[in-house]
């Protein structure tokens, strides 16, 4: 691995930018606390995953081109979404191939290794597990499918959570089972998706946790949506938001 970066470009993702700005604020707070300067290129929009995975390959090509234009010069790109990073890492090569544009293919090939998911940046590149966070709550962690099986982030997020001061981290039964989100799957196959999230909610409630954490707000919006509908009294939080909390925060 190359040296620890002192400056990173943040790819917030369109979804977090619009729906979960608190996650982006937490990433900035956390990285700056660790001495890393954060850039946020305002021209960024969407990685194209929804288009690509729903079948709209042609519509994905300009989004990939845009991503490469916006982030091509960054030494390190970090994103608080395992799913969007896996889109970049696993599918961008294919999209570039479909475009028939050799320049885009070269741009993708050069950029992809520099795009990291947050826990990869923290553990592998910055070499930290204890980020100085304080969060005295009972938390359970759901490893999202794309982080687990496409990025292979392994136990990096758990190592970060275990090092949080005051945390009561409890294991989630059948943790590796999909929550049933799957992008447009949640709408196209709503009944099956609901059956899957019902079981996920059951295992979360079994832990007695107050917070369900994950490294993907898309899955958390799904799980959180079901918890909220059931008035289950459990909230969802992105990993970054827990890692950003310190003793100095008014509401830990």
């Amino acid at each position, binding site marked *: 691995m190359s040296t620890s970066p002192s400056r990173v470009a943040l790819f917030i993702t*369109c979804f*977090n*930018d*619009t*729906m979960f*700005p*608190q*996650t*982006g*604020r937490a990433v*900035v707070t956390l990285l700056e606390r660790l001495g890393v300067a954060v850039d*946020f290129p*305002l*021209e960024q*929009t*969407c990685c*194209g995953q*929804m*288009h*690509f*995975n*729903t*079948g*709209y*390959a042609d*519509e994905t090509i*300009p989004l990939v081109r845009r991503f490469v234009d916006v982030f091509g010069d960054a030494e390190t790109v970090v994103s608080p979404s395992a799913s969007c990073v896996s889109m970049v890492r696993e599918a961008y090569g294919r999209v570039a191939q479909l475009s028939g544009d050799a320049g885009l293919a070269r741009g993708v090939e050069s950029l992809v290794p520099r795009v990291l998911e947050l826990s990869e940046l923290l553990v592998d590149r910055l070499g930290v597990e204890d980020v100085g966070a304080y969060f005295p709550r009972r938390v359970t962690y759901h490893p999202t*499918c*794309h982080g*687990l*099986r*496409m990025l292979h982030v392994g136990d990096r997020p758990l190592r970060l959570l275990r090092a949080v001061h005051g945390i009561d981290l409890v294991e989630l039964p059948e943790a*590796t*089972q*999909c929550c049933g*989100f*799957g*992008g*447009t*799957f*949640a*709408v*196209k*196959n*709503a*009944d*099956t*998706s*609901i*059956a*899957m*999230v*019902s079981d996920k909610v059951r295992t979360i409630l079994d832990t007695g946790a107050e917070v369900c954490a994950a490294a993907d707000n898309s899955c958390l*919006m*799904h799980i*959180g*949506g*079901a918890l*909220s*509908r059931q008035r289950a009294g459990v909230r969802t939080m992105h990993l970054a938001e827990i890692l950003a909390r310190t003793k100095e925060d008014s509401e830990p």
Partner: protein
Amino acid sequence: MIDAGTPSFPEAARTALADAQLRHNLGHATQTIRAKRAAVVAEVPDWQELREAGRAVKERVLRHLDQHLIGLEESVTRAGGIVHWARDGEECNRIVGDIIAGHGVDEVVKAKSLTTEETRLNEALAERGIRAWETDLAQLIIQLGDDMPSHILVPAIHKNREQIRALFARTLSEASPDLTDDPRELAETARRHLRKLFLGARVGISGVNFAVADTGTVSVVESEGNGRMCTTLPEVLISVMGIEKVVPTWEDLEVYLQLLPRSSTAERMNPYTSLWTGVTDGDGPREFHLVLIDNGRTHVLADEIGRQALNCIRCSACLNVCPVYERTGGHAYGSTYPGPIGAILTPMLTGMTAAKSLPYASSLCGACYEVCPVKINIPEVLVHLRHEEVKASTRARGVRERLSPEHAAMRAMARVFASRRLYEAAQRAGRLAQWPLVRDGKIRRLPGPLRGWTAARDLPAVPSQSFRDWWRDRS
């Protein structure tokens, strides 16, 4: 294999999801087999290398499939067998029917075979007055109940012991009046029924797991031994084989005989591996026919991304780990091949028209790819088939497709994401447009195609400040 009138996956799934008995049976069965598989796979230190070998051998075979098949034909013929080539299911059924009729027989015994399910051989034979008896225990349960298989390996996985007891009591004269749901008693009842059939049958039919081109050796892998009865007792044996089942040599076969049992039944080795080479005087059938069937496989082969589906050795590990299959069961897929492998194989074998909802019957969680013993990247193929489906619909329906709500929305969003100005305007518009829907920071009911989300899930309201607004304010 799939009919034009088959309901779409979401429709069929809705019915299956409401069946509490089915959900319970499937949940129990898949969780048990998942845990067992994980344990026996963990025992093999070079499992990942074996998977890679399994993938590589298939890739090599598919690259020169024609040569391997001609080689197989020569070897089987040299060993005294007769090889037939069938372009599709209809041709296959006719060939098999002619052979049986040529022996003046109206009853045959069958070992479990997915390929003959695919061609609907039993129905075709029945039309010619030939009764085909299924002898695989689960397949027998399906046949007696006039049911459809719902799993590749365990066709009756959707039935529990009590349901099977009731079925046997109703349909088998060999069932004792006080039959219980003890598995031993159930198996004994089936055995008494099957024994008579095995001893009387003059023609047997089987599928093929692997065929070695080098020697012309054909192999069936199974658990019960009933397949071995079918392939050894009758005078005439007809084996139906998909053309992708050929392997070049015995060394290649060795790879799959390690991968298959651990992946399918979670056993270190399967109880029965039958291997035969043509015919042998005084031992086994006196006449052996091998029917090589295409039935769409060359279409799959022509698809650069999709062809990896032909690696499949029908282990069903992908079904057992699939969170969708676990909840809907196999019937919802409306196809001979259910689960993740069926969701990619069926649309490619039959053409997209009847099966176009199948590539969407997945959350792309990737559990199938992780366990596949021959490394079929099922999520990759699913997404590829979604691209093909959108392309095909656009070709077929033109402007009407481009104006469909989904397609129009996708194109509109692509335009929005192509411009920072439009994207930021859309963020502002979203905040404004949501106000009639928001109560206490949540959206509890969405209109139109998105209503499925709010059927059981709230949606957070779009917050008043986007991240980029915060960033701009800050700097």
